[in-house]
């Protein structure tokens, strides 16, 4: 089967609010142009298109159809969509290339989270019989998870603040980040609790944004870029939707996905952790020591565009290889409440 590589990546700036349409299509037009510029490909060269977004975020049915206009889909294209983070759209595109059906694919994710009340919208991901009717919001659920780890002595408020401080420092060199700055963890801990046990720095900001990745078979990739980022392993797993039956301080789905792709020996890992404590759970699940550089981009805590933040992690991990900064990196994406579903991809210099 064909091996698959990332050959292009672009993202829209992460911002608190755009003035664009509710479905956020305007964010896509410039980044499509950017990846075509990077790769020298045109839309006619793309064999398969796949996107990740959500109708609940846009407040209308089939909202992803509007985004197809940004492609310029004539003559008709070969297209698909997942109602998840676009990292899962990348998985679908990866399969298409693996199977030899196409040799290039363009994957994109987008969402205007500022249009609605994000933490309330996200409660509709929950079990519709016994949880969603209570409208438990994403911050409340993350707080339950964070406290379980605190009570068990797995992490402290200080540990969480250090994750936030490091993320913001790293984001100062990321022009697309929404939050950044040189701030000490001790200073962050002086801020009030916004949703006990969480402080504002523990929670990823509400973000409008979009991202796009171009994939190619390895054979094709060598003609497109000098250092393609070959996906040597990609796996996704899911944990029970029953929050009260899971050990929320662990992420067995990440652990299993990580084992399947040989996650340990990477230089850089981009982890999709929308809450500070979730980064600690993920690092543990992937078996990382201090030698693995985590989220040099600043990660989702400094910009969390819904339905593209996970794809962006894979894009950032690939960019480190495309730019010649690393030879083995990891991208992770999560979807659902409290790290329910997780995808892990390992990338190597081809």
């Amino acid at each position, binding site marked *: 089967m064909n091996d698959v590589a990332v050959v292009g990546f672009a993202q829209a700036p992460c911002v608190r609010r755009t003035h664009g349409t509710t479905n956020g299509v*305007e964010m896509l037009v410039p980044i499509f142009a950017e990846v075509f510029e990077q790769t020298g490909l045109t839309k006619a060269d793309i064999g398969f298109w796949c996107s990740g977004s959500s109708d609940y975020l846009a407040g209308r049915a089939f909202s992803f159809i509007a985004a197809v206009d940004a492609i*310029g889909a004539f003559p008709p294209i070969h297209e698909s969509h997942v109602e998840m983070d676009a990292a899962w759209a990348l998985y679908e595109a990866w399969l298409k290339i693996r199977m030899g059906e196409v040799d290039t694919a363009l994957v994109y994710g987008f969402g205007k989270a500022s249009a*609605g009340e994000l933490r309330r919208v996200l409660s509709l991901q929950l079990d*519709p019989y*016994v949880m969603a009717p209570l409208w438990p919001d994403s911050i409340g659920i993350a707080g*339950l998870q964070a406290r379980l780890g605190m009570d068990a002595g797995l992490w402290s408020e200080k540990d969480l603040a250090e994750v936030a401080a490091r993320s913001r420092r790293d984001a100062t060199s990321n022009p697309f980040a929404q939050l950044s700055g040189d701030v000490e963890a001790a200073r962050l801990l002086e801020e009030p609790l916004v949703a*006990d046990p969480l402080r504002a720095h523990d929670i990823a900001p509400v973000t409008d944004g979009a991202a796009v990745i171009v994939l190619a078979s390895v054979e094709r990739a060598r003609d497109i870029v000098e250092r393609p980022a070959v996906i040597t392993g990609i796996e996704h797993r899911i944990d029970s939707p029953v929050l*009260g039956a899971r050990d*929320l301080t662990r992420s067995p789905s990440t652990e299993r996905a990580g084992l399947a792709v040989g996650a340990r020996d990477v230089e850089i890992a981009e982890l999709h952790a929308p809450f500070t404590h979730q980064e600690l759970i993920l690092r543990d699940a992937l078996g990382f020591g201090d030698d693995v550089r985590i989220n040099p981009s600043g990660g989702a805590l400094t910009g969390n565009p819904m339905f593209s933040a996970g794809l962006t992690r894979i894009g950032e991990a690939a960019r480190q290889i495309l730019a010649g900064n690393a030879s083995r990196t990891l991208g992770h994406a999560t979807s659902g409440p409290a790290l329910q579903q997780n995808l892990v991809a390992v990338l190597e210099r081809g």
Partner: protein
Amino acid sequence: MLADKSRTCFTSVVTSAATETEQTPLSAPLNVGFDYTRSVGPVLGHFVNALRQRRIVGIRGSDGRVHVPPVEYDPHTAEALTEFADVADEGTVVSWSWAPEPLEGQPIQRPFAWALIRLDGADTALLHAVDAGSAAKMRTGMRVRVRWADEPVGHIRDIAYFLPVDAPPDDPAPTPPPPPVVEREEGSPVTTVVTPVHLSFEHSVSPEESRYLRGLAEGRLIAQRCPACGKVYIPPRGACPTDGVPTVEEVELPDTGIVTTFCIVNVPFLGQRIKPPYVAAYILLDGADIPFLHLVLGCEASEVRMGMRVRAAWKPRQEWSTTLENIAHFEPTGEPDAPYESYAHHL
């Protein structure tokens, strides 16, 4: 069972804010809602029917552990589970987080705690809300008991919320309205639960659509032309679906055109404004390359045909807003029909 009661609302009235400029894209509140009806099946059915009797039941897994709420299949063996077990309506807080500003629909409409609660007799924890007054009164390991809804209906929200066991009995928390129920015969079990889902958005349109909507408020039909393929779109598009580039050049169209295709609506439905039969048609304005959907009135439904020439019937000027509803409907002009070849490529 289908919904005996369902409600939809979809309102989007584009209004002009006092401070906006010609360039600011239009936006307006958008509220969407739907009452989801779900069949409960044997396991969740048992659970919600017990709630109606102010009892909580779990289900025993293959390892002997009792799951509350009950799960339909064993998480380890994937076998269907059938052995129900009663548990207490009192339990222990396993974890909690504070909700200082309750959101619409949440169980308690004053500051409260989300909690994972392990009921006595259960091995897994139930997610629910605790009315403790303040975060300072919450702690892991505290004992809580159910505050039942005044009139249980067979729904998770029959558990209104939880209270600390030693809470005073006379301070009921404000709660959202009870969930609607599916009508059924007296005494028969609940087989369907209804869960309203209402979301609020600030809906925004593109700069191109804003030009079009502002034009309608002046009685003008503004289309835009794609700079690459020259096609004229009304409403204008954020990006030409053929070329993927924004449409830019403004084109004003007349309010006459043709029917490209149509259907006769005979079926009554919720929210219908005109008595059937009537015609919904694709209208291709003269000079446009894309038709839009509107009504054709002013003749018998059976007289409407493909290629028929029509003209807009505008509402009185004082009723105009930034909406295509300024045109009440289209009416036949009486001119000869357009030849099929002239619009065949727009079908």
